[in-house]
């Protein structure tokens, strides 16, 4: 996922087309032809203080980057900016270029997913060509090989530089306060690490790293942004590596400042952060993951307050903390989800006071949160059992008494057998779930479906349900094969290698034990009786 930052925290980067479109959106044909000005950021320039305040915690990186870029018209060697996800690399680069008001060409290797689109996007921007209905949404030049790209890039760059030189000579009467654009053009390539997965990716990467030496044009500055450190690009061909600039993950103090930006009531939010920031930072320090959790938690935090504009005193803070505390321990174990039903606020408060919170949560966790048909659920369970149980025990497990006799004879386990058991356990863990042929799956399915059927009748649920299921049982075969293929598509079953002698396809269950337990509970199926435990 591209690093997303909430618009409340940092100014959202605007795309060039939205920045330079001045006509109303209702007109189908754009009357705006791009000029050399469109190569700059497009919005009004901001001061360095604005940049620094927009990015708390990035002060040294911003200054390093500005220093590496150098003053106006200063030639520069290629720079590589690297760091983890959502550390602000792209935004900092674009905002600094907005501050410096220099022309640049931006292309992301995430949206331009093969070399041809990448090259053509760069050339379109340099040739000031916009795809519209008039030219049939085509690019200015067709280019899919690096050799063509170098030639076309050289031509495009020379024309752009010539235009820049002529405009820099004349004084700009319409915008006298703006910084001059200079005579250099910067090429920014984002998400360079994705090129490794492309077809012939290593050649393209090699080409990009040596682009500066191949072109021999000092008026071009190249900035590469990568999510991975530069060592992953080392190949046995070697290259002169660009100058690295590292964006570390935010520290706790920086995170606090980031989250406090643009909050309407800072005192309240900082009281909230005092409670949640430390425990959540132990799990992850990424802004995008924390922000989703924090926004939901903050809503819960403010629940007992009537007026959200007050600044809390110690007493109120203690009350709010105790209100929130049980939820934090639970949220730490969730990803991106604060499990709470937003509509029953009062009842939750009552239930919480009963201090049965943990057991109630367990109940909640065991509810399946997606819908599957009954036969699909039984298939899932049979696949799970087939993967977990060794095939030799099938006969005893699935006999007519239903369920395994788990009363093992107690025997004193000798040390050797304990060791063997441990090794066998390790091997089982390493190998993962076992594979089984289709026939075994169907056999187990028929066994447990009949068990489930009878238990259905015992529990006396809606009568139509049981009778309907009875009728279906006869025509089950074709439906079952359909269900198997849809389970495969949903990745609950996967096809593993087939046995070369028999030639039949073997399947493997990919369901975790938690999910199997949830499914079994929804069917009221006694899964633990059938599961083989060593």
């Amino acid at each position, binding site marked *: 996922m591209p690093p997303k930052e909430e618009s409340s925290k940092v100014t959202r980067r605007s795309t060039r087309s939205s920045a330079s479109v001045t006509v109303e959106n209702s007109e189908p044909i754009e009357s705006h032809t791009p000029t050399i000005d469109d190569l700059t950021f497009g919005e009004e320039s901001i001061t360095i203080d604005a940049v620094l305040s927009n990015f708390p915690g990035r002060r040294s990186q911003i200054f390093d980057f500005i220093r590496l870029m150098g003053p106006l018209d*200063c*030639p520069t060697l290629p720079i590589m900016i690297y760091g983890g996800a959502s550390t602000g690399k792209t935004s900092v680069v674009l905002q600094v270029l907005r501050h410096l008001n220099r022309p640049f060409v931006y292309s992301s290797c995430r949206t331009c997913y093969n070399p041809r689109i990448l090259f053509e996007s760069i050339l379109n921007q340099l040739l000031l060509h916009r795809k519209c209905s008039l030219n049939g949404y085509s690019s200015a030049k067709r280019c899919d090989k690096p*050799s063509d790209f*170098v*030639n076309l890039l050289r031509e495009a760059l020379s024309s752009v530089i010539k235009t820049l030189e002529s405009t820099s000579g004349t004084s700009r009467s319409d915008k006298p306060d703006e910084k001059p654009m200079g005579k250099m053009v910067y090429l920014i390539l984002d998400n360079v690490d994705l090129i490794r997965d492309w077809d012939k990716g290593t050649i393209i990467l090699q080409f990009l790293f040596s682009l500066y030496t191949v072109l021999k044009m000092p008026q071009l500055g190249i900035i590469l942004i990568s999510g991975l*450190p530069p060592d992953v690009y080392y190949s046995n061909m070697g290259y*002169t590596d660009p100058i690295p600039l590292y964006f570390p993950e935010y520290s706790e103090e920086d995170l606090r400042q980031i989250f406090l930006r643009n909050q309407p009531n800072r005192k309240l939010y900082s009281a909230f952060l005092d409670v949640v920031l430390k425990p959540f*930072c132990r799990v992850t320090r990424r802004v995008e993951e924390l922000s989703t959790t924090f926004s939901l938690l903050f809503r819960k935090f403010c629940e007992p307050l009537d007026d959200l504009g007050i600044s809390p005193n110690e007493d109120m803070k203690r009350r709010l903390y105790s209100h929130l505390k049980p939820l934090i321990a639970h949220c730490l174990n969730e990803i991106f989800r604060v499990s709470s039903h937003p509509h029953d606020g009062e009842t939750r408060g009552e239930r919480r006071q009963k201090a049965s919170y943990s057991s109630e949560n367990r109940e909640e966790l065991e509810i399946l949160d997606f819908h599957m048909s009954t036969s699909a659920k039984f298939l899932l369970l049979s696949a799970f059992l087939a993967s977990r149980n060794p095939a030799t025990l099938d006969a005893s497990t699935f006999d007519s008494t239903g369920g395994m006799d788990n009363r093992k004879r107690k025997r004193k386990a000798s040390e050797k057998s304990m060791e063997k058991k441990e090794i066998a356990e390790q091997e089982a863990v390493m190998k993962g779930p076992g594979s089984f042929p289709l026939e075994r799956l169907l056999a187990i399915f028929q066994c447990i479906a009949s068990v489930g059927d009878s238990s259905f009748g015992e529990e006396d649920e809606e009568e139509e349900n049981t009778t309907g299921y009875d009728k279906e049982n006869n025509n089950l075969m074709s439906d079952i094969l359909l269900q198997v293929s849809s389970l495969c598509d949903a990745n609950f079953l996967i*096809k593993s290698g087939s046995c070369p002698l028999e030639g039949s396809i073997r399947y493997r269950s*990919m369901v975790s034990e938690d999910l199997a337990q949830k499914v079994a509970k929804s069917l009221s199926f006694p899964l633990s009786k059938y599961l083989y435990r060593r």
Partner: protein
Amino acid sequence: MGKEIPAEKSLNLIRGRLCDPSFIFRPLSASSDSNYSKLKFIVSTSITEGCNNSILLLGPRGSGKAAVLDLVVGDLLEQFPDSVSVIRLNGLLHSDDNCAFKEIARQLCMEHHLLFSKMASFDENSHFIIAMLRECGLAHKTIIFVLDEFDMFAQGKQRLLYSLLDAMQSVTSQAVVIGISSRLDADQLLEKRVRSRFSHRKILFLPPSRDELDGLLEHLLSLPADSSFPSGYVSRFNDKIKNITSDRRFKDILKTFFNAHSTVNSFLKFIFCAVSLMNLESGLLSLENFKAALSSMQRQPKLEAVRDCSVLELYLLVCMRRLEVKEQSSYNFISVMKEYKAIHDSFQTSDYYAQNVCIRGFEHLRERQVICYAENRGQSQTGEYRPMKLLISASELHQGMRSHACCPAILLKLLDH
């Protein structure tokens, strides 16, 4: 504002010099037995005597092979203005034969003001090239073919090399083929028939000596005493440079630098980093700039990656390390979770999280390339069962954890046992 302008100008000047290879290599090539002179001698004799020749320039990346060649070619174009034309090919771009022939034809057309058709086929291009070679030979014009990344041309069937070298065997053509490669065994890659037509002339580019580099440093950093700078500023700047270069600490910095890097290009990068840190208010360089530049070139990426980890991710790393210490040769996510649970049971840590949170921590670690899947074959398994391995060593993990901002003490204890 008045003070900033000379600082910016000097910065622009020095950085411009650093990005301009010909400025850098001209003084290095001044002596008579340098590679520049050798190359110039060979090529100029081929031009004047009208014979064919082929040379290889070999040396590690960044030693200035292409730069010296450009100097030679520039000089020869001045010396023999009408009898030399240059065709440049690059192995990264033109390793495909079709591409290469098209590019040669295009450059020939540009040189001789002919119309180039993009639709020309491979045969047409090769006929055209051979015809041009013959014509140029008859007109006593030498064509210099510069083949950058020569080893890339030597992959595959080597058709381009063979046709070029074969065409040079005929009496009428006058061509010089200069190959540039960073593989020192580039000539061993040639096929038999190509190698027989190749004259085994090689020029090796060795790392420069300390004296040469000191001279280069001075040449780069001294400002010219012309009128575009305020006069006092130039002398102040140059004096400061002399002070710095004669300082013992600076010599230590250089020695540490040269322990790890030997090529001219890495030296230039080092100077670039130092110069860009120049204080724009005073407009003078200082020793601290060089120190900072050195530390920026001595990055430790795995250490940075470990320092970026959250506490949960550190736990996972420690569990994996403990499994390795227990001589479990292969382990996957489930076994790491078991170890994690065992640690929690025995030490009652406060950091015990659910499985899906730990999976997310694993994914973060994998993205940062601190761990990876041990083999690529097991694609049919989910990520939880695939064997994994650590990509950092125990000492790096130790060091990273000790310099981590909030690493719990118990983890360090667990790592040692």
